[in-house]
Structure formats: C-alpha cells, structure tokens
C-alpha cells in the first residue's frame, strides 16, 4: 500500500468518472485516455511491463483515437439539448451501485483469505512470447482470426454505401 498506488488509483478513478460524467463527448474520450493511461501505470506497478505497454499502445494509441474518430464522424462533439443522461438514469445508477455493493462486499468477505504480497515475479518478454507460441498458441490463433474478422467486419459495417449499393 504505497503512495504510487494511491496516486495511480486516484488518477484512474478521476479519469473514469470524468469520462462518464463530462458533458462534452470529446472531453469524455480524452478523460478515458487518462483512465487508460492510469491503468497502464497500474499494470506497471504490478510488474506487468508488457501488459502495461501493450495497454498504452492499444488503448491510448488506437482505441482512444478510434473513439474520437467515431465521435467526430457522428457529429457527437456538440452536447445535445435535452441532457446527456437518459431518462432512466436513476435506475441505472441504482443498479450500478448495487453491483458495486455486491462486488465490494464479496471482496471484503474474502479479504482474510486473499494471499499476502508475494515477491515480484520476473517475467521477460521472451517468456511471454514462448508461452504465447507454446501453451497459448491456440488462443493466439483464435485471437488472430478474431481480429481479422473484426477488421473486415468493421470496415464493411461502416463502409459508405454508394447509391444502388447494399440497401
């Protein structure tokens, strides 16, 4: 329980809250990137270097940009007149709160059984690579296929239909 952790946790929380609360959608996206960055640093704090950098590369570098593009393409950057929250926001909030309550409860329930801080494991990228192509090769392939399919699918779904084209 050191200072770094608290700072990072605070940063992440702030980013997440901002992403969910701000009115301007682009601000939300930027706040989201802050949250992502905070998470990446949390990973680093957990000695998961590779995961941290991957998180940074993928989320900050790609997903955030994607979100921003989507926002601009859907003219979502200007804030709508009638509020940014849906009519049933209260119910939603309640449900979320309930979920948090349950999760927190379960965690606190099992605090006693959680393992204490172990010494930092040293994993090199090489080990990860070996694991990826030896023990986790099947998931790796599946993810590769999934990504390809997702790529093509996204392109097709978002593709600009010419007149007389599909639909």
């Amino acid at each position, binding site marked *: 329980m050191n200072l770094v952790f608290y700072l990072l946790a605070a940063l992440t929380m702030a980013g997440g809250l901002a992403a969910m609360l701000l009115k301007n959608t682009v601000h939300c996206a930027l706040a989201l990137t802050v949250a992502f960055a905070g998470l990446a640093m949390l990973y680093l704090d957990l000695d998961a270097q*590779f995961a941290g950098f991957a998180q*940074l590369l993928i989320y900050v570098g*790609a997903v955030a940009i994607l979100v921003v*593009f989507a926002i601009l393409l859907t003219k979502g950057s200007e804030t709508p007149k009638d509020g940014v929250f849906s009519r049933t926001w209260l119910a939603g909030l309640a449900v979320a709160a309930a979920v948090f309550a349950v999760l927190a409860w379960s965690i606190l329930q099992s605090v006693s059984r959680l393992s204490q801080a172990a010494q930092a494991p040293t994993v090199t990228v090489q080990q990860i690579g070996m694991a990826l192509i030896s023990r986790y090769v099947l998931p790796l392939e599946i993810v590769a296929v999934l990504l390809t399919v997702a790529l093509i699918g996204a392109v097709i779904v978002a593709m600009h239909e010419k007149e007389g084209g599909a639909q």
Partner: protein
Amino acid sequence: MIETADQIFVLLLHWLVSFLPAVLQPVASAVLCAAAIVCFFPALFALTTWLERKGLGRIQNRLGPNRVGPFGLLQPIADGIKSLTKEDIVPFSADAAVHFLAPIVLVVTVFMGFAVLPMGRNMVLADLDAGLLFYFAMGASTELAVFMAGWSSRNKYSLLGAMRAVAQMISYEVVLLLSSVVVVMISGSLSLTKIVAAQNQYTWGLPHWYIFTPWGLAGFVMFAIAATAETNRSPFDLPEGESELVAGYHTEYSGFKFALFFLGEYVAMFSISGLGTTLFLGGWTAPFSFLTWVPSWIWFFSKLMLSIFVFIWLRGTLPRLRQDQLMNFAWKFVLPMCLLNLLVTGLWRFLGDGWLRWVVCSAILLLAYVGIALGEQRKKHIGPRSYRYAE
C-alpha cells in the same frame, strides 16, 4: 584512454551521483539523464533549424539565413527569443484546457521516447526489457496530442489538419511496427540495447548491421517511409500543408506553444531517426572494425545527423502527396510488402547460413516489389478523390 573517451558521459554521471546518499542515487541518475536529454536535444533542434534553412536554401538555389552571426548561425537563438516574447493568443471559442494541454502532451510523449534509445555504449536512460514496445506506446500517444490541438482550437483548418495527421499517423504506425518487427524476429529481443549488441560484430571488417541483409534493407526502406510520414515531413506533410490548410493543427497556436509544437516535431524526428539507426544501422557501432576506437556516441550522433540530412534533402526534393494517394500507398503497397517481409525474414531465419538464403530472400522481395508496383500502376489510383463523410 580510448575507454574514457568512449565512456566519458557515463563516468561523468557516476562522478556526479557519487556525492549523493546511496538511496537517492538511482533517482538522481535518472533525473540527471533526463535533464541531459531535455537540454541537449533542443540545442540540436536549434542547430537543425539553421541547418535545414541553409540546406533548403542551397537546394532551392538561394542563400539561407546569413544575417545573424557568422553564416547566420545565431539565427535560431533570435527565433527562440522572438517566439518566447510573443503574445500567447488563445482563440475566444477555443477549448482552453485542451488547447493548453496539447503541446505539453506532445512534447512530453516525444521526449519519453528517448528514454530507451541507447545513444552509446552503456548510454541508455532505462534499459527496458520491452523497450521497443515502450517507444511505440509513446509514439502512439503523440497522435492524441495532435488531435487535441486540432480539435480544441475550433478552427476548421486545424481540425482538418489534425484529422489528416491522425489518419496518416495511424496508417503509417502499422507500417512502422511491422517493419521493425523483422528486427525483433532476428535479434529475438524487444530491448534496444540487446538489438544493438546483436549487430555489434564484424566479418572481414564489415559490421553485421541489419540493413546489410535483404529483409533488413527492405525493412529499412519501409521504416524510413513510415518515419517520414509519422513525423509529418514532406513529402507526407499534408497535415500542415500550408498551401491547403494554413498550418494544419497548430494554425491557432502562437508564441511559446507554437515553439513547443515546432520543437516537438523536430525532436520526434530526432528520436525516430535514432530508432531507425538503432534498429537497422547498428546503433552506436562503428561501420568498420578498424574504426571501433572512435567513441560510440560519436557514431550514433553522426548517423543521426546523416538521417536528419536525408530528411532535409527529401523535403527539398519531393513534392507533396495527395491524401488518397497517401492512404493507398500505405495500405496497398507498403503494408503488403511489410507482411511479405515478415515471411522472408522467417525464411531467412530458417534457411540457415550459406548463400542460399541470400538468393531466395532477395529474389522473393524483388519479384514482389516489381509485381505489386506494376499492379498498383496498372489500376491508376490517381483519380478524382472521393469525400466520404458519415452524414
């Protein structure tokens, strides 16, 4: 003697931190290195602006800056003073916070990239195991800064420039990664120091730089293209194509913030050149075995400056591409070549030593190059560009 010359900066660092208590030493050394980097590269940036203006002047058959100081050497300082003293204008309708944050994020992320670059023997700030990955993560973050700048200043030129820049950077980031992956495949490590070490050996007095292999050459060429695009240098400088959209995403910036953008751009150029040098040109290793006595950092920076000169040269020579041409080039020519290059590298890896792998790999690459190029030429991608909005 040679040793000291080579390790002079390292020794200096140790001497400095030796005054501090052992607890603070790692932190202090890190801070000192960072400080050194942050001080050195702006200076190099100043020099480079002068160099570039001179060089462009020569290329365009005119004298460059020649009033301030000998050969106008002091011109950058004059510019610096000017930009520091100018008024910092923030447009009325701009998104002040983001508008303020953008240049900072840009510069910070760009500088972070240097952390993993080995600039000489033992001269690396943080020798991360996943150094390359870190570098790319940082590089990816700069796009966000560009977008922030473009979007926050509520100016259609800025926005267009930013969108162009982001699109371009995303496309070419893929190429950048894929063309670097081949090096990782061969050297078997993401750590840049290890990569350099892998290239630091000689046969018949010649170094084992990766550029001296078929896949390495191809990879380097594509890396160079991608790097040019990543740094928005001409011929890929559409984002700030002054003839089209006044100055791209930093149209609405003035004074020191503008200077920061300018700085960030050049420093990015330095860092990516450094990366290229490290990956393909053997980093700080000497080009010939009998030159190994020359201090490693000299080699690194001379290679760096060489590539900088190439950048300038390109800018002086090539005309600007068009947006759709740019995209087609990235996705339809460079990307396939990159993927093929991966395959070839695998072949290289498994064909074992001997002349065979040279023949096979070069043949495949050449054939593919000619084939794809011809195919691309046949279906003309230069045509009326089509605008696609999601209205």
